[in-house]
């Protein structure tokens, strides 16, 4: 019950020295960090040493941030090939924690953090919390999942860095979430935007909106629209903010939008963003859409050089109305691959194929994914063809097959799916690039 209209908003900035730094000063800081980081990875990470040797680039060739385009790229496949600890730049005993996300082939994408990396992560999230108008006096209800997924831990670390109170709810059980939110007097909450809207509507239905003390929500890990934000804001009378991150880089806290919602401010002192033309990887000008690529300038555990996120967006470097000079990336317009984010979980269609093949019969490895949003929650339906050999006139047997497929897919994707059995040979066969996903969510 404490949403603030923009005209009454008092902007707070946690680290004005960094967040409002002039372009020249920021470039100097980035240059200094990049030079050091490149030397570090060349000396300590075999993968980068080899890649740089192949390109004929030596650490000494990198004199400043403007030389970044001489450096090799890193892809999700590289992370997979070096899974789990092949890209560490420090001895393993320096690793304080790992976090992960689903990968393309059933294996996780794992990120390793030193204690300093964990502290930087918390600091970046804390900057975002302050951007959302929060202080050490606030109580932050975290209904992101805790675990390998970075959402829960990220917000928790941010609350800790800020000195605020964290309420580690984790996800699920909406009734209990609302009860605790009310009883503990939470003043802010963090979760995926779709769950935020679901919670908001549940609170409204239960008639408890007036009893909540929430003033802000921090929502990310899946794409959402301005309309969705406004809906959450108007139901709960709060201000909602978009937080972005990926575990490879650090987790939530790579970028966040301010009250002006003119794009997400990237914490470029730690995570250097490039927007590159997907066709030839040349740099895009401000406002031009391309692939977002990050270099972790100060990461110790698993530094990444020019990591290709495959997210498509554009960037603006002008000073924001909030006073920050941190560049802003726009909401994503798509991906260079076919990854989908379902309830905060990254899902690749090829994972479905791999899982179906692993069943060793029963269904054909032809499938169609349909993503819908029902009651503000993502629903993934997987259409699979019944193998002619396994076709049965007994519904019990077909239902058993359906449950088995459902269990295998849930295991592989980390998200529950609805299985719909369809007749053999009715799903379009791939001729070149078949369309495997229909996304009915209006994002």
């Amino acid at each position, binding site marked *: 019950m404490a949403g603030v209209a923009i005209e009454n908003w008092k902007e707070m900035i946690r680290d004005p020295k960094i967040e409002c730094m002039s372009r020249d000063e920021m470039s100097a800081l980035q240059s200094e960090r990049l030079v050091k980081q490149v030397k570090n990875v060349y000396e300590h990470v075999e993968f980068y040493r080899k890649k740089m040797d192949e390109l004929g680039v030596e650490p000494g060739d990198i004199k400043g941030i403007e030389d970044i385009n001489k450096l090799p790229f890193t892809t999700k496949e590289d992370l997979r090939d070096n899974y789990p600890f092949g890209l560490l730049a420090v001895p393993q005993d320096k690793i304080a924690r790992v976090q992960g996300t689903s990968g393309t082939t059933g294996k996780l994408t794992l990120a390793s953090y030193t204690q300093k990396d964990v502290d930087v992560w918390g600091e970046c999230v804390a900057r975002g919390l302050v951007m959302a108008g929060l202080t050490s006096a606030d109580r932050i209800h975290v209904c992101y999942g805790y675990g390998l997924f970075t959402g829960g831990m990220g917000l928790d670390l941010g609350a800790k860095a800020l000195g605020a109170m964290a309420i580690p709810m984790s996800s699920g059980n909406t009734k209990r979430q609302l009860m605790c939110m009310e009883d503990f007097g939470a003043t802010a909450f963090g979760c995926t935007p779709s769950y935020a809207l679901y919670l908001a509507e549940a609170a409204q239905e239960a008639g408890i909106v007036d009893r909540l003390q929430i003033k802000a929500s921090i929502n990310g890990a899946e794409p959402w629209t301005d309309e969705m934000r406004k809906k959450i804001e108007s139901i709960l009378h709060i201000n909602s903010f978009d937080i972005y991150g990926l575990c490879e880089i650090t987790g939530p806290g790579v970028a966040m939008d301010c009250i002006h919602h003119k794009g997400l401010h990237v914490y470029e002192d730690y995570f250097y963003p490039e927007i590159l033309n997907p066709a030839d990887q040349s740099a895009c000008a401000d406002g031009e859409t391309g692939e977002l690529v990050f270099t972790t300038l100060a990461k110790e555990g698993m530094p990444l050089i020019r990591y290709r996120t495959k997210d498509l967006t554009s960037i603006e470097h002008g000073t924001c109305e909030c006073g920050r000079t941190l560049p802003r990336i726009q909401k994503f317009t798509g991906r260079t691959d076919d990854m989908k984010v379902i309830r905060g979980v990254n899902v690749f269609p090829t994972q479905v194929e791999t899982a179906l093949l692993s069943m060793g019969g029963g269904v054909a490895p032809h499938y169609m994914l349909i993503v819908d949003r029902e009651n503000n929650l993502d629903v993934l339906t997987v259409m699979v063809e019944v193998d002619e050999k396994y076709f049965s*006139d*007994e*519904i019990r047997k*077909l239902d058993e097959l359906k449950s088995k497929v459902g269990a295998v897919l849930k295991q592989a994707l980390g998200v529950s799916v609805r299985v*719909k*059995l369809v*007749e053999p*040979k009715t799903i379009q066969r791939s001729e070149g690039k078949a369309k495997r996903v229909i996304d009915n969510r209006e994002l």
Partner: protein
Amino acid sequence: MGVSNTIQQLSVFLENREGRLDEVLKVLAGNDVNIVALSLADTSDYGMLRMVVSDPHKGRLALKEAGITAMLTDVVALRVPHATGSLSEAMHQIVEGEVNVEYMYAFANGSDAAAVLKSDDPARVIDILKGSGFSVYSADEAYRANQ
């Protein structure tokens, strides 16, 4: 061709989409396959159409050509005299014989009725029924029922 004791049911998997049942019936009609009896089971996702037809093989091939998944299933068609309690008695014998019945449907056949039974062991069902004084329709009888 000897008298076969089990009969072949034509089973068709039907996705829940508009006009699918109509399509199936049209294909069968167009190929002169007469439907003697049918049962349609529905689930939230799909339907299962089970039929006794005049020529199950021909029916299956015709459907296959039309891109419709169909299979032949061995079932037993029990002759049920029109007397109260006769089906109950037959079922009692099957239960005693410890055979599991997956599903059943019935149709009138002249002065009697036919109960089509799907079990995990059709041969045993026939033995049990015949052993307790019931009769089963041969394939030829079933496929030409009421004609």
